């Protein structure tokens, strides 16, 4: 069996699409991840991705052409609910999240088994949970949606860069300076939900939070300013995702896990470098 070279794989449009979409998705995830980690909201990534899974399962069963049509609005709604309940409501923010996320997972899997839309429910679930091959099977619509949304998020983030810093470093100060913090937090919740839903295409439900979190914490090991953290996180994630997808395509390993493995290994390198820089 003669090996297929990477260049030959590149000749397939879906491989090229996967590289482009993968890099853009992971870029906006890493940028979002920086303020998320700094505000101690890392768990949000995991919880919301479980909600999205539930929504996707229901959408699949109802034979939606694109599951994002349901998973996007549902996840956004969940993010907004969390944002409200996090501010001192009866159920604490993290307890509410736990309930929503686990409930959604259970409901999703139940629904998939009650009305299976394919002969291979376990395999499909596995693929969705771990993102083994999803990025390589994007439809044209998926591709444009993912790319479009990623670019929009990145541009928005750039424009709001200073606002992101202000709100992340000291929200009370921002409010005292007249900033509309409720508007910002609402918008942020929506954007996080969007990024999580599109990231699931790349790395699967269970690994989404690492796509958000690892670049940020790796960058924080070596960077000494907020701008440096953002730049390092961006470069980190682009390099790791590119490498992860390329390795996965050639070696036949599941894409999601390969990217996350690349992230984690690179994180250790960064940690070592950080030690030396001190």
């Amino acid at each position, binding site marked *: 069996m003669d090996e297929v070279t990477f260049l030959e794989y590149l000749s397939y449009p879906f491989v090229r699409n996967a590289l482009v979409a993968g890099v853009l998705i992971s870029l906006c995830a890493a940028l979002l991840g920086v303020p998320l980690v700094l505000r*101690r909201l890392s768990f949000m990534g995991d919880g919301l991705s479980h909600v999205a899974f539930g929504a996707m399962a229901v959408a699949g069963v109802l034979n939606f052409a694109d599951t994002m049509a349901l998973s996007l609005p549902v996840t956004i709604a969940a993010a907004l609910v969390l944002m409200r309940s996090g501010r001192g409501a009866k159920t604490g923010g993290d307890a509410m999240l736990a309930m929503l996320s686990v409930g959604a997972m259970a409901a999703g899997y139940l629904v998939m088994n009650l009305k299976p839309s394919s002969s291979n429910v376990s395999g499909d679930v596995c693929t969705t949970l771990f993102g083994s091959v999803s990025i390589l099977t994007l439809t044209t619509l998926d591709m444009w949606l993912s790319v479009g949304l990623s670019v929009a998020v990145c541009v928005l983030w750039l424009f709001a860069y200073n606002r992101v810093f202000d709100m992340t470093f000291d929200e*009370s100060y921002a*409010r005292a*300076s007249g*900033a509309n913090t409720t508007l910002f937090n609402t918008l942020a919740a929506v954007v996080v939900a969007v990024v999580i839903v599109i990231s699931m295409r790349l790395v699967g439900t269970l690994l989404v939070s690492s796509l958000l979190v690892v670049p940020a914490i790796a960058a924080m090991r070596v*960077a000494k300013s907020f701008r440096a953290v953002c730049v390092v996180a961006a470069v980190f994630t682009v390099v790791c995702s590119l490498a992860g997808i390329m390795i996965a395509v050639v070696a036949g390993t599941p894409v999601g896990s390969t990217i996350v493995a690349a992230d984690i290994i690179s994180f250790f390198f960064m940690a070592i470098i950080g030690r030396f820089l001190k």
Partner: protein
Amino acid sequence: MTNLVECRDLRLGYGSNAMQPCPDFTVGAGNYLCIVGANGSGKTTLLKAIAGLIKPVSGTLALAPGLASGGIGYVPQQGPLQRDFPASVREVVQSGCQAMRGWRPFYSSAERRRAKDAMESLGIAALARRCYRELSGGQRQRVLLARALCGDCRLLLLDEPTTGLDRDATADFYSLLREINAGGMTIATVTHDHSAALASATHVLTLGTDASFRRIECHG
């Protein structure tokens, strides 16, 4: 209105629990007000109300025109989030101009100049590139002070600025505040260490059971 802040029959509280009524007080231009009282007497709450972060339950808290939108420099207590934050000193100080920046995505060169001037006036210009979390407590307070001074503020509010600082750092900080006040800035600071603060104060507002507002007659 010549006074910067005027307070009458003010009642503050969180949620629906009103705290003890606050004595009527005014803060005139150039004053140095110390807010003291036992823990839980509502000092931070009052400061937050002046800063516009919370609304009074009843009574009036009137600010001079133009003060509410960027005229107040606020130095809140530091939380654990900030202490561990990967930001350069310059970035923290620059964020003091956020009210001026408004909807614009980036700071103008005039705003960058202000940040630089603020750092220089507080003697921390050399720390501009240093990481905030690597600084000592005293240095961090100067950075937060520089941030507050960055905006075009006429009233400086400080919430227990010397918490966690040793005696020398505390003394340094209060002499810094004295200088700033001497330069014309109005200051209102919540403090729990009476002696160092009262040395420079023009007025003292005591909250709690023996609430009072009085002028300090003269200093040495």
